[in-house]
């Protein structure tokens, strides 16, 4: 027997009120926790994916689109760029490393990236089995792709036209899996990586067999891989480019040779070439500013839920105080001091707030894990579901603090209760 068991007995006495208050607090805490985890994981994930990439060079258009397509593999790229121009850039002394990537197809929603072997080492990926590609139409699977597709080394698959599920399959040009990568926690886990030549070969073949009218109406791709899922930009010059021997890629990932390059190289590219240079760091920050507004609003609503549930606890305790003043008076006759009855009311509120907080934390983590299991693109975010972060301590403090605040007035009334007058009332 202690104050905790008395507080629990009071909570059990009105189960429906207790349950509703706990549910409301659970939902509020879970929403805040989920948003905190998501934004933290998103931030970490964006940083991980962009690590070592100082600049992305691609076709003119939206710089954010370029970053989303080239670094995070989320958006469609704005178009293609000439390989010749990229090769000129590669010779620029301000550039330490340049990796070309060509996009255009996908497999079950996972993007197929035509690139150079340096792309794999850039993400620190190591082979779990097999080897890297050595010839066109040999592919290496990221860990998440392998896990979800159940493809193994030696298996074959056909890429789909476009960057989302539902595009026409290149069934006549199947890829052969030659390697599978270990998980890295970066975007490469969700990519199918192959040589640039594979992309050129598939689309060369595709264009040769496709009637002109169909080519114009198709979802949007080209021999070098620029694709638009929405059916928009298809590089119509592409066939001409290839015919004239000008190969294209979708973009290039650039690492500066020195910090000084940051000051001059982007401007140099943007002003003096037909290419566009975009900084992942800058665009990611911009993206977060846009996201931040939305998440702040949702956090505000979640906080409202927490406040509402604390208000519910307050009302429940105030109502309970009216009925419980005799209990308090009797406890005082049994030797309980004012502080002890004050503590009892606080404890009762803390029992409810504590239950809501613990359940909310668990639910928040469970929801993140569920999102990760459900959406392949969110798989790295789900990593956060297994960890606890310092920010969650603030959520705990807010919820418990709300519980304490809710109990202050009823606890003060219990503290100030005139025992003799209460007992004389009957």
């Amino acid at each position, binding site marked *: *027997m202690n104050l905790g068991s008395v507080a629990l*007995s*009071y909570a059990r006495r009105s189960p429906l009120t207790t349950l509703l208050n706990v549910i409301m607090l659970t939902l509020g805490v879970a929403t805040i926790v989920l948003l905190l985890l998501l934004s933290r994981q998103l931030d970490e994930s964006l940083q991980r994916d962009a690590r070592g990439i100082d600049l992305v060079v691609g076709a003119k258009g939206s710089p954010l689109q370029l970053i989303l397509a080239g670094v995070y593999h989320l958006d469609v790229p704005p178009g293609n760029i000439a390989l010749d121009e990229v090769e000129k850039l590669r010779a620029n002394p301000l550039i330490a490393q340049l990796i070309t990537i060509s996009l255009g197809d996908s497999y079950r929603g996972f993007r197929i990236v035509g690139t150079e072997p340096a792309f794999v080492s850039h993400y620190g990926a190591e082979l779990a089995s097999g080897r890297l590609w050595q010839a066109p139409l040999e592919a290496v699977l990221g860990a998440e792709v392998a896990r979800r597709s159940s493809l193994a080394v030696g298996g074959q698959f056909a890429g789909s036209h476009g960057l989302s599920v539902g595009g026409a399959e290149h069934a006549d040009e199947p890829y052969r899996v030659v390697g599978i990568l270990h998980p890295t926690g970066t975007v490469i886990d969700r990519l199918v990586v192959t040589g640039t030549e594979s992309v050129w070969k598939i689309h060369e073949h595709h264009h040769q067999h496709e009637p002109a009218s169909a080519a114009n109406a198709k979802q949007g791709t080209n021999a070098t891989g620029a694709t638009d899922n929405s059916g928009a930009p298809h590089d119509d010059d592409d066939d001409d480019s290839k015919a004239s021997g000008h190969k294209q890629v979708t973009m290039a990932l650039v690492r500066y040779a020195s910090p000084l390059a940051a000051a001059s190289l982007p401007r140099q590219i943007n002003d003096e070439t037909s290419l566009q240079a975009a900084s992942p760091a800058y665009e990611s920050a911009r993206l977060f500013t846009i996201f931040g507004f939305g998440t702040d609003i949702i956090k505000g609503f979640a906080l409202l839920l927490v406040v509402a549930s604390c208000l519910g606890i307050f009302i429940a305790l105030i109502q309970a105080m009216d009925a419980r003043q*005799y*209990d308090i008076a*009797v406890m005082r*006759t*049994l030797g*309980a001091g004012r502080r002890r009855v004050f503590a009892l009311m606080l404890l009762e509120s803390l029992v409810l707030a504590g239950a809501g907080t613990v359940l909310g934390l668990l639910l928040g983590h469970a929801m993140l894990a569920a999102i990760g299991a459900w959406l392949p693109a969110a798989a790295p975010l789900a990593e956060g579901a297994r960890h606890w972060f310092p920010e969650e301590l603030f959520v705990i403090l807010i919820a418990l603090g709300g519980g304490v605040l809710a109990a202050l007035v009823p606890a003060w009334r219990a503290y100030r209760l005139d*025992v003799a007058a209460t007992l004389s009332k009957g």
Partner: protein
Amino acid sequence: MLVVENLMHRYAAAPVLQIANLRMKRNERWLVAGASGSGKTTLLAVFAGLLRPLQGTVTVAGKEIYAMAESMRDAWRGRTVGYVPQRLHLIDSLSVLDNLLLAQYLAGKCVDRNQAKALLRALEIDELSRRFPHELSQGQAQRLAVARAVINGPALLLADEPTAALDDIQAKGAIALLTQHAAATGATLVVASHDARIRSEFEHVLSLSGKGRT
């Protein structure tokens, strides 16, 4: 055991209590009689250390209770005073047994389930130990309230209108319960009541008129 000197208390302008001096000894049974509003409950609250009188001193077992700091007085009350309120006010959310354990806990004593069960057995309500107060009859609840008041072996046992709303047999039983337990522990029993049926059970009577002792 209990010594009162120059006690005076009032609400608003009219004095409710005025007792020049009073001495109660161990093992004595006192009835505080008087009509409603005569100050019986107020006097019990003063004796229990719950209501500081405007004037006078109350000494229990050699300790002047209102000279103690409030926190000390609370602890003292838990150890020294047993109180049976008029409407019993058992804690409804706790079982019969837990009501007794709570009394031990709040008095700062060791929570002893065996002692609590033995007391319930002595009062013939041990089979109800898992039940809740609202499941008890009036007589059973009365016995539980007495058990709660005596479980810590108080030197001063106070009961406020313990026979109100009880029939003759129940009233006799309630008083017998209190007197037996007071006698068993050597406690001073003070019962506030305007019930004429129980007057003969007490060797000492303190009559209050609303202005003071008569």
